[in-house]
C-alpha cells in the first residue's frame, strides 16, 4: 500500500527512527541547545562533548518527534563525531541543500562519506512540510556549537 513511500522512509531511516543509537542525555557535556518546531510541537535537545582539541567527541540527543526527525538526529550524532565546528557547519549546509533539493554539489559529496550516510534523508525534499523534521536537529546542534541555548527557527 505504501511502496512508493520507500524513498522517504528508507530502511535506514525506519531503523534509526525506531532504535536510535545516540538518543541519550550526556552526563558530561560542553554545550547543549534545544530546537522547537512551533508548527507541529516537535522538540529536540542536543548535547555535545568536545575532546581536548575542541573537536566533537560525542553527541547525544533527546527528541520528541517523528521517525524522520529522530533518524535525522541519530545519523547526525553519528557523522559529526571527530569534526571541528567549521566542518560541522559546512556539513550542515550541505545537508540542508540535500533535504531541500534532494541533491548537493556532486564533486565534493562523492568524497564525503558523512554525506553519503545522510543521503537516505534526501527523500524529504519531495515533502515540503517534512523538510524541517530533518533539519531541526542540525539547527539545534549549530546553536549549541555557537553557545546559544535555542535554535533560531528558519
Amino acid at each position, binding site marked *: *500500500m*505504501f511502496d*512508493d*513511500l520507500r524513498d*522517504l*522512509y528508507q530502511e535506514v531511516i*525506519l531503523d534509526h527512527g*525506531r532504535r536510535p543509537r545516540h538518543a541519550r542525555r550526556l552526563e558530561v557535556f560542553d554545550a547543549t541547545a534545544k530546537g522547537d518546531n512551533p*508548527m*507541529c*510541537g*516537535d*522538540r529536540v535537545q542536543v548535547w555535545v562533548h568536545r575532546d581536548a582539541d575542541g573537536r566533537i567527541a560525542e553527541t547525544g540527543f533527546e527528541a*520528541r*518527534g*517523528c*521517525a*524522520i526527525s529522530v533518524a535525522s538526529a541519530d545519523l547526525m550524532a553519528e557523522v559529526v563525531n571527530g569534526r571541528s565546528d567549521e566542518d560541522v557547519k559546512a556539513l550542515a549546509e550541505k545537508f540542508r541543500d540535500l533535504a531541500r533539493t534532494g541533491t548537493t554539489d556532486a564533486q565534493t559529496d562523492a568524497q564525503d562519506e558523512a554525506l553519503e550516510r545522510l543521503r537516505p534523508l534526501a527523500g524529504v525534499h519531495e*515533502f515540503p512540510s*517534512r523538510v524541517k*523534521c530533518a533539519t531541526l536537529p542540525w539547527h539545534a546542534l549549530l546553536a549549541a556549537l555557537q553557545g546559544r541555548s535555542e535554535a533560531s527557527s528558519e
Partner: protein
Amino acid sequence: MNVTTRPSVSDAAVLDVARIRAEFPILGQTVRGKPLVYLDSAASAQKPRAVIDAMVGAMETQYANVHRGLHWMSERTTDAYEAARAAVARLINAADAAEVVFVRNSTEAINLVAHSFGRGVLRPGQAVVVSEMEHHSNFVPWQMLRDAHGIELRVAPITEAGELDMAALERLLGDGRVGLVAITHMSNVLGTYTPAERIARLAHAHGARVLFDGSQAVVHRRIDVHAIGADFYAFTGHKLYGPTGIGVLWGRRELLEAMPPFLGGGDMISSVSIERSTWAGVPHKFEAGTPAILEAIGLGAAVGFVEDIGYEAIAAHEASLTDHALARLAAIEGVQVIGRAQDRGGVISFTLDRAHPHDIATLLDRQGIAVRAGHHCAEPLMHRLGVSSTARASFGIYTTHAEIDALATALARVREFFA
C-alpha cells in the same frame, strides 16, 4: 433565501450522502491518483456549489460597496450582505439581526470581546475563566488581556475522560470575582461537547457572563443562543461550509451596546469631526472598514445550505459516523483514541504506538486520505494529555462510512509499515 420551498430531507432525519456529495465539486478530485478522502473538516470544510455560486454570482451581477452607495448596485449588495446577517441570526435564534457582528473568524470574534468587553467592561482585579481544552484562539487573547489590563486568568481543568470538570469550574467561580467564562462548546481535539446550558447557569449564578467558542459545535448541532443562555457566541464561516475571511460574533444587544468599539475607521461611526467621533449603533460599531462582503454572502448561502439539509439529519449522520469510527479504530492494535467524553462528536484524535502522528499523516496522504497531525492549536491541552501531538480525523456532512473504513484499513497498514 427561502428554505421552505426547496426539497428537504430533514423531515426524515436521514441524510442522502450521495446527493450531498454531488453538491461539493472538490469531492470528485483525486489526490496522488486516489479518490480524495477528506477527513480534515474540523480544520476547514469543503464548499458546496451553493456557496461557490452565490459568491461568483454576486461578483458577476450585483457587486459594489455596502452601506454607502446611492446607486442600484450598492443597494442590492447591501441587501445581500444584510440578508446574510439575517440568515445567521435565524440559524442561531438571535433575537435581532443587529446582535450578529461580522468579523473575519472566531479568533477575531474572541479578540473583539477580549478588547471591547475585556477592557471596556471588565475591571482590573476581575477574572476570566477558560478551560484546559481551548484552542489557542480562546487562550491567547485572554493572556494578552491579563497582561495589559490586570485581569486574572483562571483555567478550568478537564477530567481524565476529556470532559469539562464542572465541580472545579464551580470552585473557580466561588469568590465572585469572575467577570467572564470563555469556553469552547466543542473541543477541536477531543470532540467533547461542553454542557453549555449548565455552564451558562453556573456562570450567571456567580455574576459572570459567558462566551462560547462555537467554531466546531455550530457545524454539527443546532445552536440556540437563547436556550443555551449564552452572552456571546463566536464561530467561523469556513468550517460551516462557507468561505474563509468571514466569522460571526453574536452578543446580547445590551452587552454589545455597552462595549466600546474594537477597530476605528469607516462604516463604524455616526459622525466624525476633528475633535471627536461618535459611534454607529450595533452591529456596525464593530464593523470598521469595508467588510468581507462576498464572504458574508457566501456564508449566508452556507447557512441556507445547512438549513436545507437540517441539523437533525446532520447530527444523526455524524453520530453514526462517530460510532462507526470509534468502533473501527478500537479494533486496530496500537491505536489509542484520545478522550472518551459521553457527549462527543465527529472529531477524533488518536495516536498509534509505532508511528508519530506526522508519519501517520504522510502515509495516509499517499492513500489520498487527508487528516491533521500536530498540536491542533491546543498546546495547553496537549500538555495536559501528556502528548506532543496527535493525528486527527474529523467529519463533515459529506463524510461516508466507506471513507472511515478506508482510514481504518490504511491505519492498520501504517502500523505494519513501522513494524
